[in-house]
């Protein structure tokens, strides 16, 4: 099976106050159709940059970003993106936010309403469909953002630390809901996080990245069955993988000296 998402030696250089630095150095990773991968690593490892390149929001300065066999030329509705800061349009109600992408896709009002209603129900915001984002809690805002992304029916979800700003309890609930939806609708998911637990709990494979320059460090498969449960989260098998990822993230060896600077 050919890869759904394929990073082929993808690099990204940024210029900052005259100096340039390498945010991402020749990343090569393939993500299969329907797979759930998490990207984890210390800050500055380029995990968010990699996600933004896949989203088409920034261009790689080297290598090829391939999605569905085609080079990425910009953002597109087949790749839904969920941002850490929710990025809801504050002047639109929950329903209008969810309908935003459908409106751009040229769907008729009745269709928009039906689709939006389905996803608002799915994320449990039916009572807040006509509320403005300012009255929602952080978790509700992110659920609204998820409904908005799902509504345009993307085959890929790119999530950039989506639960990073939520409290621990809400975060666990959101993780379970995400896995529940994913197991039913099987989208390909790339999920960036700095939480090792979250990375292991969600993923088929954990992609560990290293910093300065941002690069691939290791890929650790998570051979645990879905649905993932609290029992699994507390199991020895989970702890073992978790420890392996932890060591990969926090005890990274320094880079080979030939690539220093």
């Amino acid at each position: 099976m050919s890869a759904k998402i394929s990073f082929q030696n993808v690099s990204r250089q940024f210029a900052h106050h005259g100096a340039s630095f390498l945010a991402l150095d020749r990343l090569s990773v393939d993500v299969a159709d329907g797979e759930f991968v998490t990207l984890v690593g210390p800050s500055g490892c380029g995990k968010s940059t990699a996600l933004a390149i896949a989203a088409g929001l920034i261009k790689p300065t080297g290598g090829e970003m391939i999605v569905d066999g085609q080079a990425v030329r910009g953002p597109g509705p087949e790749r839904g993106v969920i941002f850490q800061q929710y990025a809801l349009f504050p002047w639109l109600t929950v329903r209008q936010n969810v309908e935003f992408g459908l409106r751009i896709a040229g769907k008729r009002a009745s269709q928009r309403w039906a689709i939006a209603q389905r996803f608002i129900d799915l994320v449990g915001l039916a009572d807040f469909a006509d509320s403005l984002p300012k009255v929602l809690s952080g978790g509700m805002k992110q659920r609204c953002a998820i409904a908005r992304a799902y509504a345009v029916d993307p085959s890929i979800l790119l999530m950039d630390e989506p639960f990073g700003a939520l409290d621990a309890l809400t975060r666990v609930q959101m993780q379970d809901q995400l896995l529940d939806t994913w197991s039913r609708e099987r989208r390909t998911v790339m999920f960036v996080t700095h939480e090792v637990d979250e990375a292991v709990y969600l993923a088929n494979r954990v992609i560990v990245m290293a910093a300065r320059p941002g690069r691939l460090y290791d890929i650790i498969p998570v051979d645990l069955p879905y649905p993932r449960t609290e029992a699994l989260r507390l199991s020895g098998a989970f702890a073992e993988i978790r420890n392996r990822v932890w060591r990969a993230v926090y005890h990274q060896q320094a880079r080979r000296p030939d690539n220093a600077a």
Partner: protein
Amino acid sequence: MSESAEASAAPATSWRWVRRRQLALNIVAVCGGIALWAAVVALGKVGLPSPAQVLMRAIELIRSGQILTDLLSSLGRVAAGFALGVALAIPVGFLMGWYSTARGLIEPFVQFFRMIPPLAVIPLAIVTMGIGEAPKVFVIFLAAFLSSVIATFQGVVNVDKTLINAARVLGARDATILRRVVIPASTPYILVGMRIGLGSAWATVVAAELIAAQSGLGFRMQQAELYYDLATIFVSLITIGILGLAMDRLLLALETRLTQWQERM
């Protein structure tokens, strides 16, 4: 969410109480100010008209309809100049915020003319446009345009990039992003600019009428000055203040209504 409903119920009553208290304090302050004015006049040290004299003159001027005529001609100039200024400022501000080329070309002029008080342009405007309505409307236009254009431009520049990215990943192109993201996101800035613009337009019209006009509140004061008619000057000043305040409140109400989606601290 029940917690937010409960949370908003308690502050609502205390908020209403605070508002009432503020209003009471405002009224006390205004009455105190008038009493102070009456006391100063009663001491006879300064040749000012008393509040009662001013009130009498105000009634006279309202009865004769003169104040209404003056007021309408001042308001007409402000309305024309302000509408033209804002109508031009919004597209120009968007151009400046959205296209760096437009910004590079327009910004030096805007920044330069912003430093010149619109009133300083009056001599030039009179020489080139004559003594009709045109020069007055032009300086008001300039005053309103310059304050609104900067605010609009700032609003566009400050639009949250994440919101633009969120629209792009949902399939939006430039025109849609401008219409559905940039315009609503910069509305609060534009409205603040309009309020500042209206304040400066109102200040400018009165001053312009003092210099060159055959009607208007400024003209009436200039006439009264010739006859040492202080009561009429006072009535005009108070009218200018009340009207300015009323227009500002009107825009503030519009602003509150259009930007109620904002999260306020």
